[in-house]
């Protein structure tokens, strides 16, 4: 378990929509398939994905994701920002790809456990 603020700082994430940095992240999931997110993503988690699409927010909300990181610094469409805003989800971007960011965060959790 770790705080979102910690991840933002050490992984150099860019905040797009963040209501509250001091939230607990209890799990991590890397996927670009919404059906997978729906089926397997842990609750109160951070989702690493390339899917910069409003549907991602919809699915994330359903399974209880707390923060979404869009990789490759991909532009976030307004529709997605609006929905994140409305659903109270943290939305961030990273210049890393899925593997690199997962490893970075994996390294952090190591140190914290």
């Amino acid at each position, binding site marked *: 378990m770790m705080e979102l603020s910690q991840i933002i700082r050490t992984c150099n994430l860019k905040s797009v929509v963040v209501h509250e940095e001091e939230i607990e992240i209890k799990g991590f999931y890397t996927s*670009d*398939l*919404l*059906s997978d997110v729906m089926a397997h993503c842990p609750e109160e988690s951070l989702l690493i994905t*390339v*899917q*910069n*699409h409003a*549907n991602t927010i919809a699915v994330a909300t359903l399974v209880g994701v707390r923060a979404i990181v869009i990789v490759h610094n*991909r*532009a976030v*469409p307004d529709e997605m920002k609006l929905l994140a805003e409305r659903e109270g989800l943290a939305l961030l971007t990273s210049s890393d790809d899925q593997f690199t960011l997962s490893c970075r965060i994996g390294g952090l959790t190591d140190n914290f456990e």
Partner: protein
Amino acid sequence: MADPLKNGDSGLAGTREDVPANEPLILIEMIQRLKVRDVMTSELAAVERTDPLRVAQSLMKNKKISGVPVKEGGRFLGLVSINDIIQALEGGYIDDPCHKHMSTKLVVLEDDMPLSFALRYFNKYHYGRFPVINREQQLVGIVCQRDINRALLIELTQEFNRLESESVSHCVPEDPFNLYVLREFPVAKYDFENAGKAANMIRKVLKEKKFPLKDIRRVAVAAYELEINLCVHSDGGVLTWRMSKGRVEITASDSGPGIEDVEWACKDGNSTAIEWIRSLGFGAGMGLVNVKRVADEFEIHSKPGSGTTVRAVVFVEPRSTDHRQHDQN
């Protein structure tokens, strides 16, 4: 003119049966497909009806031909042959107008007859050449055996090149840089089972030919993205792979539905793909961006309602300058 199909001769010209069974199928197909107009010489040396035979004689001498057609206002009237000239010289009437001595009982060919007709005529009549007329009875060309041989040779060479490019993986030309390929792959809408096969095949061939890996990758990425776009977004289309002298061109062409806003579609992340397409691993809106990135030349034309054509060109280095080919993969 007489219909050769009705002359009671058992060999039916224009049908498969008139060709000996041991003739290669490619040739049979060719002489059925090619028309007389495809092989005839149309830059005609001809004389007018009232021209003296002397004019025909000098034409024959200058052009090294053995027969000159005679016409009047474009209409074909007859033929003056070397024989006619010899007789005219002997008989001292070389200054007579051509129409007085030309042969008029002539066998002519029509320009839209298949080549098989022409071949049959050569066998049957033993003339060196046949005048060719069109439907309006106008003289449009002349055909001699040599014209046919040349046309068949050209066709055969092209056919051979095509076959070679099809079985390109089975033979090894000395320099892959000189490899010539023209292949078309039909791509059906939503046929995810087969989509991508063409790109895989193209990559495999280029790799076997030991092209530089970096270039192979660029061609393959463009081909795959365009092939998948045909499958996902179009009503079906054709992916064309052209290659000669190290210039590799991949073209995706379809006839619908077209793109509303091409500029928007070419921008990173923009996609009209719906959720089930995304669940198949497509629709990130990165495809055209990828094609642009890997291509040396990129062109897209689209019109809603009429279709889309995307062309990507990759220039491949000649083999001698490549050092990466020893790498694995």
